[in-house]
């Protein structure tokens, strides 16, 4: 049996990037912090470009602990939503038209979030990746790591539990 011809690469990329952008740019707080996501296949890296309004200690200066927490929580929520949406995006159940029209999928809700501050956040860009350790029908557990200059030198890590959105359609 002949396999169906794969879609052109730019069509696939455009659909995935549009879904990602709709998901991220629809949330005011994510835009307020200036967080962006880079996608390689289904792997996401969150980027927090440094800005003066993110400073928590002007003497050092260092990034505010609350900013680091918000950055990690965003990385966890988007990572979790993304892993759940992947199949819907690939199968075309979620269309680009509906996404660009602002019909955003419901995001998971944070139940609790614990941040471990390992080093002070330097006044430069930060990066983070989330790992979904368990994702059930109702609850999920996600771990996030954040670093700045060196990938192996984490400046913060976090674990959170999330309530999954109910699928109504």
């Amino acid at each position, binding site marked *: 049996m002949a396999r169906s011809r794969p879609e052109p690469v730019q069509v696939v990329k455009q659909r995935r990037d549009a879904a990602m952008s709709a998901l991220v740019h*629809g*949330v*005011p*707080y*994510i*835009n*307020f*912090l200036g967080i962006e996501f880079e996608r390689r296949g289904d792997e996401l890296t969150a980027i927090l470009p440094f800005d*003066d*309004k*993110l*400073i*928590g*200690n*002007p003497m050092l200066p260092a990034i*505010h*602990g*609350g*900013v680091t*927490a*918000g*950055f990690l*929580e*965003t990385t966890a929520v988007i990572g979790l939503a993304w892993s759940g949406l992947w199949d819907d995006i690939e199968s075309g159940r979620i269309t680009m038209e509906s996404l660009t029209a602002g019909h*955003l999928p*419901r*995001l998971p*809700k*944070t*139940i*609790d*979030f*614990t*941040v*471990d*501050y390992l080093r*002070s956040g330097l006044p430069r860009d930060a990066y983070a990746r989330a790992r979904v350790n368990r994702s059930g029908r109702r609850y999920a557990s996600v771990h996030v790591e954040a670093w700045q200059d060196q990938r192996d030198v984490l400046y913060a890590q976090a674990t959170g539990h999330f309530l999954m959105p109910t699928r109504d359609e």
Partner: protein
Amino acid sequence: MDTQKAKMAEHFINAIPHCKALDMKLTNIGDGKAEMVLPYNDNIVGDPETGVLHGGAVFALMDTCCGAAAMCHPSSPSSTATIDLRIDYMRAATPGQSIRTKAECYHITRSVAFVRATAVDDDDALPVATATGTFTVQRS
């Protein structure tokens, strides 16, 4: 509250760029306790459909307030930094309402401060979030 100490603390909080960006205000401080408020703002919404504030903004408020509570403990640490902070989000904050938080440094050693906090909106009886954390204690 000791007005001089309160003024100093207020200066300290107001000098934090991120707190200024979120328009946070210190409303009370002294004896290892602090109170702060975060006004509702459209640009820190986490769920555009309902208008509920993002957990990150609440985290920033509670982290700052816990740090302030550790700083104003009678044993007078010279500075502090968060080691670990956990927040439990008990319910969605009501859109349009300010978030108020109270933090208390309930134990302090030579090097660690233990702090807890509660956050509410206009409904005082039902907390929006609770937090527990540990902070470093710098002695000059």
